[in-house]
Structures are given as structure tokens and as C-alpha cells.
């Protein structure tokens, strides 16, 4: 490899690791020495636990809804409705064209107090429909790749000729074969929801990311600690995908995210 090649690799490493190292150092700083005080302060804060669990619950619900929507859809697109593929693909790419800020403004405008019961309007679960939309591209491309790798027709016919119904076929035959795609989509959605700030902030809900922002306005070292925690969540999600055997990096699956 050439010298300039090594130079660019060094630039890449530096750009990736320097901000992390700086944040880690800052989060451990305690006056003139180092300690875990900032982390202790965060973990002792009841608001941290509350908002973290809100985001965790939102992530789980979003993942469940998105999987329930997409597994049958992608299955049918592969099995019976290939002519609908362009439409589904188009709808799943749309969240790239409609930014989160525009999506939430539209959701708040249309799904307002006249159309939504006030109990839901005041609950963070109000965010789930929008989060599922943000997860469209991740879920679709992850599952689509998984379905591409298996012979949907043969598996379905074999299962049905052995007497299984649709639910049984989907649950016992198809699902185990596309689980790596489902898990990849779930992890990406998890990282997405745990970091989503724009929509939560505009809809005035307190989630983990809005808590990070709130701490950032008031306390510097705990904010750095939270940044490290948040980065750790992204790492875990991506590592999860690696462990189930899916390389991150196949273009479309990874593009986007909530900023």
C-alpha cells in the first residue's frame, strides 16, 4: 500500500477516535484528577432512569409494530405481489425525502387534538407511529435482503403441502429463515429510537435524547458521560448486527438515522 493510503487511513482513525477519547476524558474529569463522579451523578438521577425507560419502551414497541408490519408485507411482495415491489420500495425510501422535522410537524398538524384522544396525545406513545415510519427503510431493506437469500416459493409450498396453514408457515418456516434480517432491522431501529431527538423535542416529550440535551444545558461533565453511554448503545446495536452475521455496510440499510 502507498504512503498516501496510510495517510488517509490515519486521518480516518483520528477523526473517528479523537472525539471519543476527548469525550471520555472529559467525562472522567473531576477537578484536577479523574473519577467516575459524573457517571455516578447520572445513574443516581431519577430523571435518567425515567427517560431511559421511556425511550426503551418506545424502542421495543416500535420494533414490534415494525416487525409485525414488515414481515408479512415483504413476504407477500416476494411470494405473490412482486408487482407491488416498486410501490413498497418507494414508500420505504420516502423517509429519506421527508426529514424527521417535517414528519413531526405534519403529524402534529394532522393528528391533533381533534383526531386523537387526549390520553394518547399526552403520552410518549404518540411518537410510535412516526418512529415506525422512520424505521421503514431499515426494516424493509434488512428484511428484503434476508428474503432474497431464501427460496420463498419452495419453502411455502413444502410447508403447505405438509398441511401447515399461513400462520404456521410464517411463524415456523419463514421466520426462522429470515431471523438474521429481522434482528438486523430490530437493532437498527433500536439505535434509531434511543437516539431520536428531533421528533420527541418538537412534540414536547421527555425521552432519553431530550434528557441528554437538558443535562448538556446545565452540567458539562455528566453530559459527556451521557454521550459515552449513548455512543455505547449505538455500538451495542451495531455489534448485535455483526454477531447475527450481517455485515454493516451494505449501502441502503445503513443510510440515515436520526439527527
Amino acid at each position, binding site marked *: 500500500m502507498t504512503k498516501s493510503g496510510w495517510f488517509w487511513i490515519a486521518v480516518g482513525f483520528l477523526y473517528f477516535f479523537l472525539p471519543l477519547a476527548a469525550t471520555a476524558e472529559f467525562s472522567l474529569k473531576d477537578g484536577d484528577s479523574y473519577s467516575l463522579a459524573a457517571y455516578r451523578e447520572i445513574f443516581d438521577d431519577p430523571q435518567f432512569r425515567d427517560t431511559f425507560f421511556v425511550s426503551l419502551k418506545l424502542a421495543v414497541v416500535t420494533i414490534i409494530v415494525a416487525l409485525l408490519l414488515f414481515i408479512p408485507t415483504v413476504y407477500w411482495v416476494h411470494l405473490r405481489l412482486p408487482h407491488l415491489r416498486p410501490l413498497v420500495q418507494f414508500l420505504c425510501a420516502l423517509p429519506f425525502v421527508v426529514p424527521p*422535522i417535517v414528519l413531526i410537524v405534519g403529524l402534529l*398538524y394532522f393528528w391533533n387534538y381533534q383526531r386523537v384522544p387526549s390520553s394518547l396525545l399526552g403520552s410518549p406513545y404518540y411518537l410510535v407511529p*412516526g418512529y415506525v*415510519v422512520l424505521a421503514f427503510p431499515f426494516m424493509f431493506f434488512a428484511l428484503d435482503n434476508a428474503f432474497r437469500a431464501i427460496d420463498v416459493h419452495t419453502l411455502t409450498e413444502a410447508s403447505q403441502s405438509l398441511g401447515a396453514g399461513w400462520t404456521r408457515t410464517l411463524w415456523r418456516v419463514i421466520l426462522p429463515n429470515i431471523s438474521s434480517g429481522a434482528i438486523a432491522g430490530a437493532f437498527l431501529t433500536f439505535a434509531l429510537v434511543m437516539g431520536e*431527538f*428531533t421528533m420527541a423535542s418538537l412534540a414536547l416529550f421527555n425521552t432519553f435524547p431530550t434528557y441528554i440535551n437538558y443535562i448538556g444545558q446545565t452540567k458539562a461533565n455528566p453530559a459527556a458521560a451521557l454521550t459515552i453511554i449513548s455512543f455505547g448503545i449505538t455500538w451495542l446495536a451495531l455489534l448485535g448486527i455483526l454477531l447475527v452475521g450481517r455485515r454493516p455496510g451494505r449501502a441502503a440499510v*445503513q443510510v440515515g438515522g436520526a439527527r
Partner: protein
Amino acid sequence: MPFLAWATAFLLVPAGALLIGAFRTQDGQFTTEFVKDIFKGSSLDAYQKSIEISLITAALGGALGFLIAYAALSPGAPRLLRPAFLTFSGVAANFGGVPLAFAFISTLGTVGLATRALDSMGLNPYDHGFTLFGFWGLVVTYLYFQIPLMILIIAPAIDGLKAEWREAASNLGATSTQYWRYVGIPVLLPSILGSMVLLFGGSFAAYATAYALTSGHIPLVPLKIGELVSGNVLSDPHQAYALAFGMVIVIAVAMSIYFVLDRRASRWRRAVQ
């Protein structure tokens, strides 16, 4: 299909309502006033700044991302670099929002690690007009997700660059410069430009990082929409709908350019297979 119902209810209908809302007054009258306002005063400034920052981060992120990706993924590079760079890129591209802003405050803020290091060398960037909380600070911060995004998007195109082409070129007596001038760049250019257009869209849509970093001091369209909606400013929410409508138009134009470029790029993908 439940999926189609969901997409209609929570994506198409709200987006459509917004489109109509951009042309309406508070009491339901038709008006083009708000949309016309986009091209005036502070709204126009916001679009200019947003487009400017998106173009710059797309160009810089695209160029740096390509150079890094080519160095790490080309056939001559050590095997281990490939999974490492793709994994790091996956993480960094998905790491954004508020924490990213804080990471850069710890790095390049007034007392950040890099600032202190540069200061001890007598090169404090703050003495030379740089501030993390201004335009160029935002550029440097956005590059943290733009560069890895570029690496991920461009990787398949680099993989498609056949070693045979390079060998054929050098067998015919081409220098390295000639190879890039007549083979490498023409083959890769549509992919590189197309990826840069995607980076443009990502940066144009970004809200959280800019919000946390500049607390609204740089006028960007998403920040302006946020201000109008969350009620910091007493004004007509339909102004925000018009601004949002404008954002969708800008990104739709960018995406059309992407599809044209992608079709050109796919010629080589087919030729390769």
C-alpha cells in the same frame, strides 16, 4: 395491506396535509403568502445557509470519505482494515444528534482536548477566528457522520473497480495518473457524485446536532421550523408548514439528481457483473 394503511396514515396524509397547510391561512383561506415568504428575508437566509452547509459538508465528506474508503478497501490494503472500517463507519454514521454535539464540545470546544493540545503548540484555533459554535464548527461536526456515510455508500462502487482494468491500463503503458484520468475517475464519478447528493440530503435534514451545538445562532431551515412550532416565537404555524414544504422540494430535487446519477453509475455495475 396494513403496511400501506400505516404509510398512508402516518406518512402520506400528514405530508399531504402539510402541503395544503402551506397554502392556507389560520382560518382556512387559500393563500400563497407563506410560500412567497420563503423567498424573502430571514427565510431565504435560512435556506441559503442550509444549502451552503449541506453542499460544503457533502463535498468535503464525500472527498475525504472516498479517499479513506479507497485507501482502506482497495485490493492492496491489508485484509483486517476492511471489516474494521466498515464497522466503525456503521457506528459513526448512526451516531448523531445531541451526543455528537457534546462529543465535539469535549474535543474542539473552548477547553476541549484538541483545543488544549493545539493551544500548547501555540495554535489555538480560537485565536484564529474559529469557533465550534459557528458555521465551520458545524461543518467539522457534521463531517463526523458524513465521512463514514460516504465510506458505506461508496464501498460497493470501489469493489466494482476491477483490478483487470488497472492491469490492462498499465500493460498498455498508462501511468497511474493516466489510469485515474481515463479509467478510474470516469467509472467512479457518477457513483461519487450520487453519494454526495445523498450526503447533501442527510445534512440538509439534520436538526438535533445543530440545535444542541449552536442553540439556534446559525439560521438553518430545520432550526427555524423548530422555533416556529415549539412556540418560542409568536407567529403563524402555517409559516412553518411553508418552510417544511420548501425543504421537501429541495430534497426531492436532490433525489431526482441522485436517480439520474445512479442510473449512469449502474451502467458499470451491469458491465461488471
